[in-house]
Each structure stands twice: as C-alpha cells, then as structure tokens.
C-alpha cells in the first residue's frame, strides 16, 4: 500500500521539485520583477480579488437556495452550477464568448448600454468568476448542511426576523466554510488560463494575467517562465495552508 502511495506522491512532488531545480536563483528576483511580470502579477491579484468578492456576493445566496430550500429540478440545477468545475476552461471561454462577445447572445444589449466587455479587464473577471464560483457554492452548501437549521429555528421562534437570522446565526455558523470557499475561489481565479485566453485575449496590463504571461514567456525566455511558475506555486501553497488552517480551527 505504501509503494503506490509513494509513487502517487512522487508524481505530484517530483515535477515541482524538478521545476524548482531549474530556477536560476541568482537572477530569480530580476526575472520576476521585470515590468511585464509585475504588470501580470498585479493584474492577477486585482482581478482575482474582485472575482472572489463576486463569488462571495453571488455564492452565498446560491448556496442558501441549494441547501435551505427544495424545489423541482434542484438536483439538475446543482449539477449545472457545478459544471464549470469539470468543464475544460477553454470550453468555458468559448461559451462565454458566445454569451458576452460582441456578436454573442447579450453582446448587442451590452453594447447598447455603452459597455465594452471584449478585450477588457471585465472579461478577465467574468472568466475567473465563471470558473471559481462552484468552489464557493460547494464549500458553503456543505457547511450549511453540516450546520443544520436547528439554531435558525430557535432564533426564529425567539422572534428574530429572517434577515437577522441570516446575519446573526447562519453566516457566523458557516464562516469557516465561507472562508475556505473564498480562499479556494481566489486560488482558482489566480490560476485561470483557458477561459481567459479564449474569451478575454492577452494584452499587458489589461488582460494578460500571470498564467498567460508564463505561457508567453515560454516562447522567448524559459527562465522567466520557470521563475514566474514558482511564484504561482508558492501562492498556491500559501492558499492550501490557509484553507487547512481555517478547516482545523472549525473542528
């Protein structure tokens, strides 16, 4: 049992270690601090933060509807909401293109409103939110179901209004789940590549996020690509640490 387990662990750890061994440590900071790298990192952090916020705002009501109500077609709806988790991101990008693109389903409506989504940072945020939202919904719905609604019922019998119950009872109860969902959404948004390159394009400071920058640097400067990849690995490790921290404090 330990041999296959060790092989599995090696399969994950070995490529990361191999990549780390290829980093030109002497030039590491100059490689990751070039103008284009800094622009990409800053754009990634900004858009991921906004996407995470959107995931929180949209994910809380979605999780509540899925966990606290029951209606016909709920199972189907849940499966549909989780679709971006398993969909190849490129497919998501194509779907978004045909929805928000200039010739897409909502394209003309959006253009009439004077908004430009194509090739804008907004497009990046839409793509990131699309792929990250299920993480929020799954974490939060799980937390809501585990918490049950006994405390909510008690609060209601004591005369608390629904909004007060939500604010003072439900949300504090599921706060660890909410935090874990937010951190996972942020991580997913940060790593988003396929939907962004398909839907938003790639322009420095506007739509070229860190994964797109890494992909492009590979063409001309592999050392910089490796160094930037390591930056993303470090961020991912930090994120996993955060989630584990919030999980263990919840127990």
């Amino acid at each position, binding site marked *: 049992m330990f041999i296959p387990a060790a*092989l599995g662990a090696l399969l994950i750890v*070995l490529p990361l270690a191999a990549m780390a061994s290829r980093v030109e440590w002497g030039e590491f900071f100059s490689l990751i601090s070039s103008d284009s790298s800094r622009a990409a990192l800053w754009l990634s952090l900004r858009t991921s933060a906004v996407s995470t916020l959107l995931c929180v705002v949209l994910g809380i009501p979605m999780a509540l509807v899925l966990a606290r109500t029951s209606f016909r077609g709920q199972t189907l709806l849940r499966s549909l909401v989780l679709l971006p988790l398993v969909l190849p991101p490129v497919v998501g990008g194509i779907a978004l293109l045909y929805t928000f693109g200039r010739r897409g389903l909502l394209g003309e409506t959006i253009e009439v409103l004077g908004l430009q989504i194509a090739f804008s940072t907004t497009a990046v945020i839409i793509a990131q939110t699309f792929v990250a939202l299920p993480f929020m919904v799954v974490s939060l719905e799980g937390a809501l179901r585990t918490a049950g609604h006994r405390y909510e019922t008690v609060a209601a019998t004591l005369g608390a209004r629904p909004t007060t119950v939500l604010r003072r009872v439900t949300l504090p109860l599921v706060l660890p789940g909410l935090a874990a969902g937010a951190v996972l959404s942020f991580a997913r948004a940060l790593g988003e590549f396929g939907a962004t390159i398909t839907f938003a394009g*790639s322009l420095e400071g506007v739509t*070229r996020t860190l994964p797109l920058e890494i992909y492009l640097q590979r063409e001309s400067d592999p050392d910089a690509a490796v160094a930037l990849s390591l930056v993303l690995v470090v961020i991912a490790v930090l994120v996993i640490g955060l989630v584990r921290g919030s999980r263990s404090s919840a127990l």
Partner: protein
Amino acid sequence: MNRTLATLAAGLVLTTVAACGSSDSDSASGDATKAPETTTITVFAAASLKDTFTEIGKQFEAANDGVTVTFNFAGSSDLVAQIQQGAPADVFASADTKNMDKATGDDLVEGTPRDFAKNTLQIATPPDNPARIASIDDLADSGVKVVLCAAEVPCGAAAAGVEKAAGVDIKPVSEEQSVTDVLGKVVSGEADAGLVYVTDVKAAGDTVKGVTFPESAEVINTYPIAALSGSKNAGVAQAFADHVVGAKGQAVLATAGFAKP
C-alpha cells in the same frame, strides 16, 4: 540536489515501465514476426503546415509501400525544444529559419536545410468587414479593434516588421499566442481585424475576408525542411524531404497559398 532528483526520477520511471511492460512483451514479439516489413517516420512540422503536410504524407505513403508517416504539429519553437530534448523525430519542417538555425546549431540536422515554401501576412477581417478595413493604415485608426500575435512568437515578429515597413503604429487590443488564436478572434467577430498568414486566410474559407496590402512583401517567412541526424531511417527521412521540395509536394503547398521558395 540534482543527482538525488535524477535518481528518484530514474527509479520512478523504471518501476512504471516494469509494471506496464510485463504483460505486453509476449504479444508484441509475436506480432513482429507475422507483420510485413514497415517503416514509420515521424515528421515534426510547424502548426501552419497541418493541412498541407497531412496531404503530402498521404501522397508519400501511396508512393512508398510499407512506409507510414506520422506527424507532430506544433509551434516551431516548441518542436525544436522537443528535438533538443531527444524526441524521436526523423524530419523537421520549421515555419521560420530562426528555429531551424537552433537545430543546425546543435548538430541535430543531416546535411543542409532546404527552403520549401514562403508565406506572407495578410489582413483578416470578419466576412462583412464591419470596420471597412482597406489598407494597413486603417488598422492604426482608434476604434478599430485589431488583434496581433505577440512579439515573442514568429507571426508577431512578422507583424512588427510589416508595421515598421508601412510606417504605421498599430495599438492591438490583444496580443495572441499564435496565428490560430488571432484567427479565432476575427472569425468570432470579437476583433475587427487581425494580421495572419495568407495561407491561414485561404484555409479559413468563407469565415473571414482577406485584405491584401503591398507592404506585406517586405516581410517574408521562409520555411526550411531537413532530415535529422538522430533518425533511424535516414534514407526514408531524406526521401520525404525530397518529396516536399519536389513537384508533387510543391503543388500541394501552392494550392494552399504558399509561395515558391
């Protein structure tokens, strides 16, 4: 650090190979005695050659009994990196001389590479040409959404050369990774125009409209081909390169819009 890693990696690979190989070995050796003599060559070719080389490969197989041609189509810089890492390739066809030079520089090429095709840039617009693009100067107008290749990839370098030759300064809304990505943005109508190769416009058929501009002649992409020194079937590899340079291969390339070298 590196040696420990290498040992670990070797151990992992050996274990996996041993585990997977044991059951297959008997049947494989059994087949080899029955099957007729076949030779398979692997051709590493630039992504823009996908349609033409697939057809040329079929021609070559039909003309040479027992020969199978398999392809690996990707960006030329990716291909040359794979060849440098020891990928089992017999022939390399690059979309530019720069990447072929990398292969010759590392002594991976048999003989001298031969040029077999030329390609130039063309403006691609959606079929209805919504921004009424008629020349390369129109691409510099503000309000026109233009998509180019990033300067890091060959088509982007070509676009920069054309801009310089025409004396225009295009401000693209996106710098894409490959010609295919540029074309995708134009086909979907997201962009008003993009700079791609003549052959891409031709291959895209009715989904885009091509606008020719005289300055495109200033930047010509040359495609070289060569058999590789690592080939185990040097004769067949050389014959394939000869076929591409020869009359039949050239006819296929000309139909697709490539210019003669």
